[in-house]
């Protein structure tokens, strides 16, 4: 499989069979490219695309607590994902999830929906001056039962 930045994506059909794709969005800029990438891949196989936003609930609150500010952020991110998909002539199903930890929640959602591929975005950042993938990405890369595509955005 060869990927061309920005233009068409050439996919070797023998290796990539897709029926369901899960995209994890987090409201950051990398969401745009991530959703676009997932839609382009899914189009080829008419795969179903689920876009999920996970709200991480601190332990000082019960798991089903309603946190207005977080829900607002989530809904904004999910609407944007729907818009991006529409711009690329594709339809996505969005879902809002509340969990204690994002990584396990993404893996759980992937397992529940029996997806073939998880697509995640990563905004390039350096924490304390060193490159760091955070907690979610390494967890999903290690624990996901399916393929994982990690999109790292450009260093601007």
């Amino acid at each position, binding site marked *: 499989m060869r990927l061309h930045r920005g233009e068409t994506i050439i996919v070797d059909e023998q290796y990539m069979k897709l029926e369901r794709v899960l995209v994890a969005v987090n409201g950051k800029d990398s969401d745009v490219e991530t959703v676009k990438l997932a839609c382009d891949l899914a189009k080829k196989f008419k795969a179903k695309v689920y876009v999920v936003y996970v709200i991480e609930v*601190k332990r*000082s*609150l019960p*798991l089903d607590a309603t946190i207005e500010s977080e829900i607002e952020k989530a809904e904004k991110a999910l609407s944007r994902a729907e818009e991006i998909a529409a711009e690329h002539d594709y339809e996505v199903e969005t879902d809002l999830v509340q969990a204690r*930890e994002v990584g*396990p929640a993404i893996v759980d959602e992937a397992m529940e929906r029996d997806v073939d591929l998880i697509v995640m975005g990563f905004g390039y950042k350096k924490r304390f001056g060193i490159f760091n993938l955070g907690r979610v990405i390494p967890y999903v890369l290690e624990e996901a039962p399916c393929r994982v595509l990690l999109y790292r955005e450009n260093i601007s």
Partner: protein
Amino acid sequence: MYIIIVGGGSVGYSLCKALLREGHEVLVLDKDPAKCEKFEDEFGSVCMRGDGCEVAVLAEAGASRADVFIAATNEDEDNLVACQVAKHKFGVPRTIARVNDPKNEEIFRRLGVDCPVSVTNVILEHIEEKLPTHPLIHLLSMGEGKMEVVEVKVLEGARSVGKAVKELSLPPDSVLALLIRNGQKPQVPTGDTVLNVNDRIIALTTVDGEEALKEALVGRSNG
């Protein structure tokens, strides 16, 4: 209920498993990341890495909404401090501490731990109940550690033998709830009930009144 357990060792593990099975929300705190990972693998997001005696860690763990706090580490002083911080800083209603060294059980109770549990002591009491020197067994702690349900055996030579309950100088706030006599149905003793040797009494008493209760029921007749 939301239950926080400090200490991911064998006791913490068993408690976590049992409580989750009953449908409670559980969080285990342990300083060792390897232990945390084991909990995560088996139960999901139920373990947080941190020192359960630290205010900052307990705040992050949501201690202020916890219903029960259990300190189950190997170190008694850590269990004591964790319970005290949980109670006095976060207002957790019920604190339970594992007591490794039996002699600390009383100290913990006096320092405000609702339910200090020393397995050694429980076993010892049951063994010693057969011996004349330890006729009082703790059965249950109630009312946030302020009340105790105890079983007292009336021994031979005790000054209460042959006396009616109303004649005994029982401490205030103690109640003789049940009288168990060999060959008879358990009965609720009244003021006129006369005590015999080998009678077993289930009584409710305050922590402070326990000694006096013991003295009244099984103290010896001649000093």
